[in-house]
């Protein structure tokens, strides 16, 4: 048996390789991206892997493969499942032939997301089983189990990861690698694959009818386990990774209690009823939504149970849980059952002395990189449109443009363009210029641009084109010219796409050519209709990795008047020396040269070798 120290997402990727999967698709999104990044980097792939243009497409690609009979695995972040909700809600009716797993990685505490929705709700909504692994080992092992389960019950299944699973690390015991098991052989079966009313009607009852059998199968499995404590009338029911925190808190406080771990849905009714019969008091500990809690309350009501059920409030419904929170809640509601010395030990730590807490620390939020092409685009947009214009934006690195004052809205992928056109049609007279990256534009921005042109909006769309999906770790997209596995493909022409959608003002400019940028955005602002400016330049990180090297720039001290224009540009490579009141450029400079073009006094120049 080999044990390896692994990132949760790498363990999940390993689980896919041990499961006989034949197809992997997905769209990048934190905290899910490393699963496919790891799989696509494997040599001798025994399966097909792709980055799809969005999550809806990814799920549909996988449904196609699963209908043909092979095992298909799809990955995305939690909000990606909103995009894929359309196929999800109906493939649940149709069911599947080859195993079909949709992995959605939730982000409790919103470390890198716009909301903290709970994917278990989707599983419930779509009436499909959901696995919510408690540990990284489980996250790997569950993949094979879920494929078997999917094929046995002819249903898609969801695996829900969370940030602490996906971006946690632990020792993982590896299993045998297993090449794709199933052979593709598409058998026509309209009553299962054509969800027109006549066929779909019958399927709703079928999937509801399967729930009990699936519940019982999961109740027999190691994913839902009740450890019954005969000498105690106290019970803990806990789900997913929270069950690990809850167990740790239980041990730390010396509480003797029955413990029901739920990591698979539909929930184990018989085990829950067993708990209700055995316990006077049950504490339900789950992250985010009270899904288990609600179900326990329903079962208690149906069984006329007098057991006291405690859940949300005191257990928080917002943000991720941890050991500390679980311990505090347990002391709160189970104090009489705790070992006294253990409660004393749980007292909050001594506060740090004022010498430390009085130090005012400079905030260190994430920022656009040195030489990032988005920075010059934002600078020009601000200059041309003025700070009173309205700047809808989108999801990507460029959301960091908020520090430059040019990000006024961010809701979801592709929304910048559609919201911009909504603002222009609202009667609002201020100029509107929205920003969207190439990958996000291709994800769901294309529809929005078509809509804006079709409806005669007057606005400017800046497509910040760095030819890569940068924020999530530099995944290729249809604009890059290569597939997920590095095979050459025809790069989409953004300008041609925009033209085909009917945009009649399209200007393509180099992000490092400051004057050309200014001209392009001035003309775009004056255009009566939808104007599109495509700002091109490779992502600075990708360029560095590819070995692109430019001469750095330096401040000619005698010319510098200390006007701070370069400093306000916000590149981390420019600094201001307060004593001499001149700027200087530090060693991080990658030589994009934009600051030299911004400087009104010709005080910044390339350092020629």
């Amino acid at each position, binding site marked *: 048996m080999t*044990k*390896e*120290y692994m*990132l949760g997402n790498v363990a999940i990727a390993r689980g896919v390789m041990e499961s006989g999967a034949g197809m992997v698709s997905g769209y990048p999104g*934190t*905290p899910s991206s490393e699963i496919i990044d790891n799989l696509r980097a494997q040599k001798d792939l025994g399966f097909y892997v792709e980055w799809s243009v969005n999550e809806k497409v990814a799920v549909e690609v996988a449904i196609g493969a699963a209908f043909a009979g092979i095992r298909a695995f799809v990955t995305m972040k939690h909000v990606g499942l909103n995009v894929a909700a359309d196929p999800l809600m109906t493939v649940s009716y149709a069911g599947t032939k080859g195993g079909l797993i949709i992995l959605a990685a939730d982000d409790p505490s919103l*470390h*890198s997301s716009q909301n903290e929705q709970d994917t278990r709700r989707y599983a419930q909504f779509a009436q499909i089983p959901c696995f919510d692994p*408690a540990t990284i080992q489980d996250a790997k092992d569950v993949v094979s189990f879920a494929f078997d389960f999917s094929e046995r019950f002819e249903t898609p299944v969801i695996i829900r990861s969370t940030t*602490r699973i996906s*971006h*946690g*690390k*632990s*020792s993982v015991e590896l299993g045998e690698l297993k090449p794709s098991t199933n052979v593709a052989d598409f058998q026509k079966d309209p009553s299962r694959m054509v969800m027109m009313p006549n066929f779909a009607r019958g399927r709703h009852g079928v999937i509801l009818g399967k729930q009990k059998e699936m519940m019982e199968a999961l*109740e*027999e*499995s190691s994913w*839902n*386990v*009740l*450890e*019954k*404590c*005969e000498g105690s009338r106290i019970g803990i029911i806990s789900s997913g*990774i929270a069950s*690990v925190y809850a*167990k*740790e808190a*239980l*041990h730390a406080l010396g509480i*003797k209690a*029955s*413990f029901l771990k739920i990591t698979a849905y539909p929930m*184990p009714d018989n*085990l829950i009823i067993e708990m209700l019969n055995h316990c006077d008091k049950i504490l339900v500990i789950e992250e985010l939504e009270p899904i288990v809690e609600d179900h326990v309350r329903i079962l208690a009501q149906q069984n006329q149970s007098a057991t006291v059920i405690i859940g949300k409030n005191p257990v928080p419904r917002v943000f991720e849980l*941890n*050991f*500390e929170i679980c311990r505090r809640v347990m002391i709160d509601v189970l104090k009489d059952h705790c070992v006294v010395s253990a409660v004393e030990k749980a007292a*909050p*730590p*001594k506060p*740090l*002395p004022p010498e*430390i807490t009085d*130090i*005012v*620390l*400079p*905030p*260190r*939020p*994430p*920022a656009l990189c040195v030489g990032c092409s988005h920075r010059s685009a934002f600078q020009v947009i601000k200059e041309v449109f003025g700070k009173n214009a309205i700047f809808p934006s989108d999801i990507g690195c460029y959301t960091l443009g908020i520090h430059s004052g040019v990000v006024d809205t961010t809701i979801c992928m592709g929304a910048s363009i559609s919201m911009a056109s909504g603002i222009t049609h609202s009667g609002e007279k201020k100029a509107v210029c929205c920003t969207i990256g190439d990958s996000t534009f291709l994800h769901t921005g294309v529809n929005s641009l078509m809509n804006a042109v079709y409806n005669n909006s007057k606005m400017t769309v800046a497509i910040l084109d760095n030819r890569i999906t940068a*924020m999530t770790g530099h995944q290729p997209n249809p604009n890059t010219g290569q597939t997920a596995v590095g095979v050459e493909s025809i790069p989409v022409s953004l300008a041609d796409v925009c033209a085909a959608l009917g945009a009649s003002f399209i200007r393509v400019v180099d992000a490092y050519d400051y004057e050309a940028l200014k001209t392009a955005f001035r003309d775009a602002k004056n255009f009566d209709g939808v104007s599109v400016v495509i700002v091109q330049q490779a992502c600075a990180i990708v360029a560095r990795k590819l070995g692109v090297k430019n001469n750095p720039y330096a401040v000619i001290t005698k010319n510098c008047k200390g006007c*701070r224009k370069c400093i*306000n540009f916000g590149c*981390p490579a*420019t*600094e201001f020396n307060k004593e001499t009141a001149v700027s200087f450029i530090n060693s991080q400079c990658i030589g994009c040269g934009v600051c030299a073009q911004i400087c009104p006094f010709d005080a910044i120049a390339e350092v020629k070798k």
Partner: protein
Amino acid sequence: MSLIPMDKDGFGAVPNSGKTDVKYDVVICGVGGQGAILASDILGRAAVAEGRAIQAAETHGMAQRGGSVENHVRIGSAYGSLIPPGSADLMIALEPVEAVRYARLMKEGGVIIVNTEPVYPFTVTTGKAEYPGLSQMLEALSKVFDVQAFNATDVAAQTGNRQATNVVMIGAASHYIPLQKQTFIDCIRVLVPPEFLDINLAAFEAGLKSIRK
């Protein structure tokens, strides 16, 4: 039904595996891009090699764009990966301000190994915020913690590559971490690309010599 009687203690099974007799919690903090993840990989892999239970939590995604990063590594933990405030045994701070930022995680008397080379955030370079004085920060931390400060970036540069600062810090930290020095070296051999191996092994040794326990 998966119904099993609770064990004799009445606390039930412990998830995951590995030795839990020695518990040691390490915070690795710094700035996105400084190599905090490689540092935690070396540590975690070494723990696995010695058969210890291990849980870690990392910062990926948006925070990596030059933001503050915080990795937790819990040696001997069979449970969660997050270190409760006031209980970490050791901090490896790749940047001095970040040492102060995460000091709340440390237990009283815990060891803070801090690289004294500052990395100025854009809030400082654009004049929106002040960077605190180095000696003020180190003196304040020394009131409560065992502070071991040196310029690990300079040490790394002397061994051939500033990028190896993280490995210099691991070398220094190996004095305190309850794992064998040789295990760290073996893990560095596996994790570092061959062309950078010599520099990183030298960085580890230089870090080891940079502080005296």
